[in-house]
């Protein structure tokens, strides 16, 4: 690993001869080491889920959340370096409240995603700062309906029907591609996400907590945690599916 970008990877402001900015790539590797974070856009909303790895047994369940609302109509889930996720969420909150106090209306999805992408990109331009080691999924409801965006450390911002980042993302993306999201409701989407999180969780890793949040018609168009009853049911189904897979094998 140490031989890869020798000399050209010391600073964000240096290109390598083959056109890469290694610091941004390394930031993406930090994201790849984080827990799985995935989201899907169903027909009546967007569901986000995070596999939050628990490094210590003494952690209080439900603390140190990786998913947070940035406004009533928007929320973010992130993975990678947890403090970087928090900083991105804080910035998104102030973008939302700044837009509201200036334009008098809630920030539309495209504008918020664009601003956050610019913010992340800015940290790849200067020698004195490092890029964020976190990717975030942004779920927004605006006048056009629901949308899901992925923001990456280099400043890329793409709109998705469904995507995953972090550990096990390739398997998760394969599973997501099999889902018929345009016909699923968000309740079904929650169950599908929980199943994917549990299925792709690596046994070697420690304990994890599955955080689920959604913004959909059932939540009144507001970004909220999935109600406990539904979340528990989804997790129970996911665990059962895992056990039955084990038994099949």
């Amino acid at each position, binding site marked *: 690993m140490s031989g890869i970008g020798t000399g050209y990877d010391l600073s964000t402001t240096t290109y390598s001869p083959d056109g890469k900015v290694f610091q941004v790539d390394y930031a993406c590797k930090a994201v790849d080491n984080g827990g799985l974070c995935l989201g899907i856009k169903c027909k009546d909303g967007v569901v986000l889920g995070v596999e939050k790895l628990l490094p210590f047994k003494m952690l209080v369940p439900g603390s140190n959340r990786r998913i947070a609302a940035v406004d009533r109509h928007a929320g973010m889930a992130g993975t990678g370096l947890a403090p970087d996720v928090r900083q991105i969420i804080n910035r998104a909150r102030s973008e939302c409240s700044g837009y509201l106090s200036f334009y008098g209306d809630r920030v539309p999805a495209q504008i918020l995603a664009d601003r956050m992408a610019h913010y992340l990109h800015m940290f790849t331009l200067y020698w004195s700062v490092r890029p964020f080691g976190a990717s975030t999924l942004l779920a927004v409801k605006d006048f056009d309906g629901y949308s899901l965006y992925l923001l990456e450390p280099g400043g890329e911002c793409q709109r998705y029907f469904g995507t995953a980042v972090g550990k096990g993302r390739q398997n998760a993306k394969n599973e997501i591609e099999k889902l018929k999201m345009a016909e699923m409701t968000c309740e079904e989407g929650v169950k599908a996400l929980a199943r994917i999180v549990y299925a792709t969780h690596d046994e070697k890793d420690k304990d994890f907590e599955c955080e689920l949040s959604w913004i959909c018609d059932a939540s009144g168009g507001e970004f*909220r945690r999935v109600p406990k009853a539904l979340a528990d049911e989804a997790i129970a189904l996911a665990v059962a599916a895992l056990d039955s897979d084990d038994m099949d094998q």
Partner: protein
Amino acid sequence: GDDAGGLRPRGRAQPQPFACRKPHASSPAAGSSRQSTSQSAIMIPARVTHNQSIGPGVVPAGVDPAYDAQYRVRGPSTHCGAGRPFCVAPGPITHTQTPYVTGTTVLGCKFKGGVMIACDTLGSYGSTKRYKSLERMRRVNSTTVIGFTGELSDFTYIMTLLEEMNTNDFCEDDGKELAPWEIHSYLCRVMYNRRNKFDPLWNSLVVAGCKGGRTFLAMVGMIGQHYEDSHLAAGFGQQMARPLFREQHTDDMSEEDARTLIESCLRVCVMRDKSMINKFQIAKVTHEENSPTICEPFAVSTTWSFEKYKNPSEFAPGCW
């Protein structure tokens, strides 16, 4: 005479009114005259004493150095405003001088199990009863309601501040919300700090709510004065309604009794306050979950058939 609300140049002796400096005092000038032995033939017009903040008077520049010195620019004044409007001399900053669309009184009283506040739905534009369906009481969050008197636009601004705090609570998502006394405390600081900048929010606010077994009713005024009580009023109701509250209010009144008391206070207010209309709303908060309700507008019965009202111009012919 002396100028009204006199702004004197700081550190200077009061400017003396003086008449012409011509040797002969043939033309008496405004104000007192002063004997002069000078043989100078310069004709200096009489200085009219007036509020110096409205600018130099009739003395041309360069004629009287002492007079000019009063209006010398005192250097860059980054923070100092223009004093009163249409002024040349700096003075204390004055922004909001007068409210435009105003609400009149808000009444509030506690009862057993909750608190209710009441007001009419009028937005006056001076003495014109201009907006007759104004919501002067709003729900803040699931435990609090707020009512205002005074300038509508300032209250709209206060509601945006409170909405921002609600959004922060929502994003934090820890199951906690601002309590009524926390909102009241926040508004006290906002009002007081605005008053310190000589730019007040021209409102008296009544904050009412119930949380955690505690019933709360308090008011904040435009200069930051605030108090908490079992019954209170903002605006004209302080004179009209509070005496009735003092006589008849008890903390453990039933809700129906409290409502009857409030309606009788509203009747007194609407019959005495010329900037009030007979269209009221009552906001009620109890200890149940998510309880603030603001009822539909209603009217109270009023009676004008007093003997002395029957022929009011009987002893004043010519009026109607």
